[in-house]
């Protein structure tokens, strides 16, 4: 194991600028699997403690502390077996493409995280549950898994540690809801991708009724580095309270849309204006969804908010996947909301009423307004529908997320709604509508 310099860009340090990704050999020569090897020398409770101390929070959207989540998994000789670990690689959130980057460019990093995770909880089987249209990623993960088996990094008695572990890949059939962890588990069992009732939580009774952990791709990627360089290093990476770095993204009419690994707590302004290169010429910033399609709009006034789970929560939006979608002044915000709510309505699993019936109802009203047939009472009805799908009122978080852009648009862009209704048409220039 070579002594390595503690990096400031752990997640992307194995990513090259070309189209390729590293083989196991290349990955290992650059320090890959050192985190795993170190973990194998520790006891699994110690590894768990290290993860807890690092302050790592889940990168899939909700930001739940990973160590805490893992500590609910029953341990010891009488714990149920087998135990499962699942990488959630079903990325389908509108505006999010960060997991794809990691999957395609750094497959071994994900597998290393998954094996570290498996060792930490003494799990037996790991799954990579991956979005079916990520062809290249699937190919590369499959190849990486084979390389691991060939090198004794998977299978029986890994690296002589006595730890047995297998990894399977499962390509998803392509529904947004399959990314919800309990729907994912149902889907993996061959059932309909409806979310499950909680309790029981997957940590105690998940896949096939056994203890199961589901985490985001990016969450897993952090693990080897935390073990390798220690929790204090990890905490030190963040610019605010939250630890580590994060893959942030900006899309929309900015000069240089893309993805960057940056410290947690990087201000939104820096992301849009420096990394995203600012607005394209002729366009002004009207607002943005800070964390992907299912987060509340923020505006100009929030630009100095750091991308940190709690700070964004304070201005009433969410960090989500950390991928910002920018709305400019030439695009109709209602059109943008329709696009999003339509997507979510279409992706509803159909289990509960507020989502299954409420979202299409919302789309119906939004289209009515957009097409100039709106009435003032429609605004109230839309508000009622967003309250209807509020957190706790639905069976899972899809619908509450779906109405976040709508409810914040009703707040920040109320004038636009009123103008549509008063003018009996969309006030934005027809040419600017990107119907797809």
């Amino acid at each position, binding site marked *: 194991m070579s002594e390595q310099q503690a990096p400031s860009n752990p997640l992307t340090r194995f990513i090259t600028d070309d189209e390729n990704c590293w083989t196991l050999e290349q990955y290992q020569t650059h320090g890959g699997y050192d985190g795993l090897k170190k973990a194998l020398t520790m006891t699994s409770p110690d590894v768990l403690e290290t993860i807890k101390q690092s302050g790592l929070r889940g990168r899939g959207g909700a930001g739940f502390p990973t160590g805490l989540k893992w500590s609910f998994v029953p341990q010891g000789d009488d714990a149920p077996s087998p135990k499962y670990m699942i990488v959630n690689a079903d990325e389908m959130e509108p505006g999010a493409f960060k997991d794809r980057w990691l999957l395609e460019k750094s497959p071994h990093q994900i597998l290393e995280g998954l094996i570290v995770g498996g060792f930490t909880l003494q799990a037996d089987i790991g799954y990579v549950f991956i979005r079916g249209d990520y062809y290249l990623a699937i190919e590369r993960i499959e190849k990486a898994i084979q390389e691991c088996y060939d090198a004794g990094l998977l299978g029986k008695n890994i690296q002589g540690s006595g730890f047995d572990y297998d990894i399977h890949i499962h390509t998803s059939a392509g529904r947004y809801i399959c990314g919800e962890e309990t729907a994912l588990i149902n889907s993996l069992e061959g059932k*309909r991708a409806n979310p499950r009732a909680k309790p029981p939580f997957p940590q105690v009774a998940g896949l096939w*009724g056994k203890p199961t952990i589901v985490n985001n791709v990016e969450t897993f990627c952090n693990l080897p580095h935390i073990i390798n360089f220690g929790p204090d290093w990890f905490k030190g990476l963040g610019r605010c309270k939250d630890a580590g770095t994060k893959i942030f993204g900006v899309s929309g009419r900015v000069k240089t849309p893309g993805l960057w690994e940056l410290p947690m707590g990087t201000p939104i302004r820096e992301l849009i204006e420096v990394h995203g290169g600012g607005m394209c010429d002729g366009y002004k910033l009207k607002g943005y969804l800070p964390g992907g399609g299912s987060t509340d709009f923020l505006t100009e006034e929030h630009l100095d908010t750091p991308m940190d789970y709690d700070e964004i929560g304070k201005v009433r939006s969410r960090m989500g996947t950390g991928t910002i979608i920018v709305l400019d002044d030439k695009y109709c915000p209602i059109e943008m909301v329709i696009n999003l709510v339509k997507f979510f309505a279409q992706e*509803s699993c159909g289990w*509960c*009423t507020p989502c*299954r*019936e409420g979202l*299409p109802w919302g789309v119906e009203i939004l289209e009515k307004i957009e097409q100039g047939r709106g009435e003032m009472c429609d605004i109230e009805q839309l508000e009622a529908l967003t309250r*209807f799908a509020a957190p706790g009122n639905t069976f899972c978080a899809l619908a509450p997320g779906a109405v976040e852009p709508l409810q914040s648009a009703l707040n920040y862009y109320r004038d636009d709604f009123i103008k549509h209704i008063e003018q009996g048409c969309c006030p934005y220039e027809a040419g600017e509508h990107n119907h797809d």
Partner: protein
Amino acid sequence: MTDKVTIHIDGVAHEVQAGINLLQACLNLQIDMPYFCWHPAMGSAGSCRQCAVMHYQNAEDTRGRLVMSCMTPVMDGMIVSMANEKAVGFRATAIEAIMTNHPHDCPVCEEGGDCHLQDMTLISGHIKRQYPGTKRTHLNQQLGPFLNHEMNRCIGCYRCVRFYKDYCGGDDFNVFSSRNRIYFGRAESGTLENEFAGNLAEVCPTGVFTDKPFSLKFSRKWDLATSPTVCTNCSVGCNTYTAERGGVLRKINNRHNADVNAHFLCDRGRYGYEHVNHNDRLEKPWKRNNEQQKVEVLNASSAAKQVTDWFSQGDTVAVGSARSALENNAALLKLAGKGNFYAGVTDVELEQLNLLTQAAHNLSLLSLTNIEKCDALLMVGEDVTHTAPRLALAIRQMTRNAGLDKAAKFGIKPWQDEAVRNIAQDTRSPFYALNTHATRLADVAKQNIYLPPARQLSLLLEVEALLSFPDDKDIASKEAVAIAEDLLAAKKPALVTGTNGANPQILAACIRISTLLAQKNENSGFYCATGQANTMALGILSDSNQGLDALIKRLEDKAPKTLIVMETDLYRYFSDDVLDTLLDKVTNIVVLDQLLTRTAQMADLVLPTTSYAESHGCWINAEGRLQQSFATMAAIKARLPAVQWLQSLSGCHTNEQVLAWCAQTYSELAPVQQLLETSGSDFVIARQPLRSTGRTAINAGIDVKEYPPAQDLGSQLEFSMEGVPAFRQHQLKEFTSPPTGVWSPKWNSSQGINKQLESNDSSNNNGILLFANKTTDASSNLETDKSAISSDGLSICPNHHIYADDELATYSTSIQQLIPTATATMCQAQADSLGVKNGEPVAFKGKGHSLELPCAIMPDVCEGVVLVPMQQFRQLGNKATLTTAVRSAS
């Protein structure tokens, strides 16, 4: 006693049962809490979001949090509000959202007036439609003779699929697609395969699934007169509501009896009623005039006098009926005398019934509810799905107990249905099916064992030995060891068998095993499905050597002068070759029956009797539960119950008098006294709901006069809407009958029953258990003649079928469509050894009768067995032989 907790709903403290969910608690308290996806038997799903209430953390919490009451366990000190503005608003939006895709077709929907969605819409206060869009539409499917499918009405509550797939184990029905296009049905049109599919008409809260035979004679619920009845299509004795209008039986619904059927019926029971409306119903007393070669119509008094005249000439033999009420059988027996009374079942069945009634006091005969609670079960000798269908559904639930226990360890309550299933996965309580061929419960069995009867018996003898000497494992088969171990390890083991396999030795062995189990474990139990609805009554009334085979012998020896056959078609048991000549020797044949059966066609005097729907009577089910069934409609003038036809001969003029005689004469029937003591009060009960429309108009095409409603002298029930309405009946202690229907303000649909579950437990209404008093005299001879089991030859065994086997049910056109063609069924190896191919004829002989059936090759039939449909098996008898397996000319 169950624990209680105190919960506060809108500032009022209520004591409720611990461990249940808040929705159920509210319904039990008669609070109008709206719901869709919850079902008392299937628990909670949390999908409709209609049952939301505001939940407060503590007294200081003023904001509260919306929770779904069906997903929230009651907790001591819990504070909730139904009236909270946000909760009311949420529920109003929920129903409005649900209705966005529901068509406005109440006026043409058959659910209308009996619709949970209508009820809930009203309760949740949704009046004005604000949704601006169009509604989604679906294509419907043809689902067979029992159910209509109108998917546009679906509100997506998932109850149907949870019932069909999860509860009944059906695999030809599912939910398809997603979002607001979810579709509930089959992958493609076709008859629903599950035997309990008909329940969808009640399980579905809207008009997606409606009762198809009812469609042909549809009437709004408010125009139906309903009475509490007992299903007469098998020995389980499910409780039903029978509804009529204008003298036509319109439909059967489930009637909740917590100890028997609870919420569900089988399709034979739900649809097997059309004999009541059938063209073959007898309408007048007929007398054969052989000289003039014609049939004379008699009036009631001359017909009764004719019987009396013939009877007074002496030498009369009578045949009782397994499909007639206890009172009718007892009256006939009383007049004929024990020695001249023959039970309308085979000798073998009677022998089994006697084994059963003698042992019954020593065994704990389980109710279906108790079967559901068992944690190990051995089913022997028949597939109860076909012989006692509702019992099979109970066994299916029983297999879930290990999973429920597993879930309980995670703190999950049994009603948290999805969670329980996710934890349980394939965990099942041990259930063994020992039969000649695959049963419909094979999918939930720990082991399916297919053996010929003789080897079934050997296996049972091994189990029996192991129960006494558990350590003697090396001399027993591994199946026997596994069964014995599971039965001994269980907290509540049970053995289920039946008389329909026609094998007294197997029954005796089952009884011995159950007796042994009972000695070791007082919580163990037994269930023996019997042949027909009132077979058990015959078992109690008659001696073992007085069955139909004995009758035939008597007719052969010396034909009696007069033969009175009541509600039994002898031609179902014997072939024409046997019967025609024997009956010719009898001078006077009197047949009392509802229908023009083959036997009735041979009669010299036919007396038309009432069907169960036109008479009041007692039925004794397989577990010895005596239940009363109340007439739904008045009989036409010339039809009388047998008790009435025979009154001058039996000396009993009313049912009460017959029952009093029974109570005095038969120790088993002594508990009947309870019924006689409790009857009689000044209240009358309405059969029709308030307010029945068209009451005076229905006959206007014939006659505009309004006649007074018919009188029911036999019960407190009125054939009108006068009297206490159904929804108030359970509040009044004087009543001795169960409520006459489910119809109450705001709760018009049959779901209304879900509000009354706690109050609906008046003991007599759930039936009287005749064998509840345990005695200790184990006197009956249950030894198995071991020499008889070594038969290595071919066994001809009955192949039961839910729709083919019950005489009365087969009068229903819907049921007829599902009767399979009769075949000689066997496995490939057996066919090979007989040298027959699929479809080639196989010839049988037995009881002086021979017949041919085409060979049908099926997997999962054991070698050494040829299966013959029950009806053909009955005619061939137990000693049938296979004469030849003739190769068809080719």
